[in-house]
């Protein structure tokens, strides 16, 4: 029963995204990728295969993250602003169902966008006979799990603050969490025990989005695929973080006057 509700809500988000021409952004970015690869071809890429792969993976990660943040943080506030939320809540669904269904929709849209971009990038690289190793499949899978975390976080922020603030905060945390985490590691040993505990708490609370980025291994040569336990741990982390973020959204949204 619930599954049908979530599916219907998620489908509505995808259709709305198509109607709003969000995926046109993906098409334009894809076109840019193809044109730029053509321009790069003018100069020849002999010996630059790794560099081209690195660029492709970086741009793919960047664009898909930006799209996921924008889709996730804008969705709920727009439903409220355009008053399309009322007919939805008039149906026999709870506010938690609504949040879960909508977040799943955001995830679906970001996955579609990511896979479209990945396909176009792959097409462009294939034109240059640039090949990837099998770990690329794991890269795609891990990145899709990372998008789940980002979407969960984006929806949570959008229920807590204005859409602009939510997207800004989401960008800062998603792009800054790696840097913050590394700074904590560097400073940890020279800190007092109390501060070390604070560092641990901050690190555990931060979304570890960089864990889902296997780009470094996918781009450079002869890196083995990551063990299955790692993929399993990433999936578990994704599930826990998604549940936490959705719970936070629900705590705020369940009593929010509309």
């Amino acid at each position: 029963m619930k599954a049908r509700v979530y599916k219907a809500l998620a489908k509505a988000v995808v259709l709305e995204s198509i109607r709003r021409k969000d995926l046109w952004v993906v098409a334009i970015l894809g076109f840019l990728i193809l044109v730029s690869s053509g321009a790069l071809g003018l100069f020849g890429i002999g010996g630059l295969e790794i560099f081209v792969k690195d660029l492709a993976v970086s741009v793919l990660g960047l664009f898909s993250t930006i799209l996921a943040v924008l889709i996730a943080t804008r969705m709920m506030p727009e439903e409220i602003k355009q008053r399309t939320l009322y007919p939805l809540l008039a149906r026999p669904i709870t506010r938690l169902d609504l949040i879960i269904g909508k977040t799943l929709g955001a995830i679906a849209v970001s996955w579609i966008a990511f896979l479209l971009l990945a396909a176009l990038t792959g097409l462009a690289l294939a034109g240059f006979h640039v090949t990837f190793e099998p770990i690329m499949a794991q890269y795609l899978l891990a990145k899709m799990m990372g998008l789940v975390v980002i979407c969960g976080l984006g929806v949570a922020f959008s229920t807590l603050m204005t859409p602009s603030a939510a997207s800004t905060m989401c960008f800062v945390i998603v792009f800054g969490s790696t840097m913050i985490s590394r700074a904590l590691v560097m400073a940890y040993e020279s800190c007092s025990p109390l501060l070390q505990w604070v560092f641990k708490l901050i690190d555990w609370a931060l979304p570890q989005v960089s864990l889902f980025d296997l780009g470094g291994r996918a781009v450079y040569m002869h890196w083995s695929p990551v063990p299955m336990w790692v993929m399993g741990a990433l999936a578990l982390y994704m599930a826990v973080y998604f549940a936490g973020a959705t719970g936070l959204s629900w705590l705020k949204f369940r009593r929010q006057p509309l």
Partner: protein
Amino acid sequence: MAVAAICACAVACGGWIGNFAQVLNPPVRPAGLEAHETSAGASLLGQFRASASAWLYLHTDLYLHNGVEMRPLSDAEKLAGRHGVGAADDGHEQLADENNLVTVVPGKERDFRGVFGDLERATAAYKKMEGHKHNEPENTLPLFRLMTLIDPQFVPGWTMGATIIARDDARTGEALSYLKQGLRENPDSVEILSQLGYYDITRWKRLDEGAEWMERARAFGYDRFKFLDESELDALRSVYRWLGLCYRDMAQFDKLRSALSEGARLFPDDVIIARLLNPPPIILSDSAKKAWTARIEKAAGSQIR
């Protein structure tokens, strides 16, 4: 890929609008205001070219380490007695000083993050780098060619690229051609001129031609001494040393004294220049020669601030 597009466009613009390229990349840098200081468009494009080439330069390090990111130790870490991963174990030590480098992703023994740290080490391009080996430096050459194509005024792209080409003695001529191409774009570069001289002297034993390059480097360096950056100062310092050695071997003692006196004035703390300028008289015994050299070195050493 989009970055590549912008790179490509920047390069294409340089060739397409010939005059614009001349303004952006004049063969000789004017002493007064440059285009990027007076034109917003040129400034933006110029900044982009500089950033792109610097970014590519940093990327060569990733190439060498097969994607493993490295960082220098912080001052606090050095004070705490932490050591870097140490030099590579493959004869590439001259490419970079890695004694103060550690991996960006920390090793398990220095990581408080527990399972998150384990996961990052498993998913990122990470491995223990003590006694590590580099990928073939020749693989980075296309990057050097690309960075100098994007920004011909990026001197490290020319000098390091030439160093990598010249690792193979048989390709010294190719390295010299590459440097001469760089010299056309940067005619007053002390680093490029000194490297040209270095290869002539050490590889082809052409002391007279090597000394000519060094003299050109010396003249440009002397004129702009107050404005040289750290790497140019290092290059100029070695220019005086090589000139001293060249003139000594060619028995041109007037030129030797002139060059070394000037070098000693500019670099009073340089022990090698001081020693070359004041060789022990041949009539002294071995022990007296040693004492002489020690006094010279002590005098130069006392100049170090």
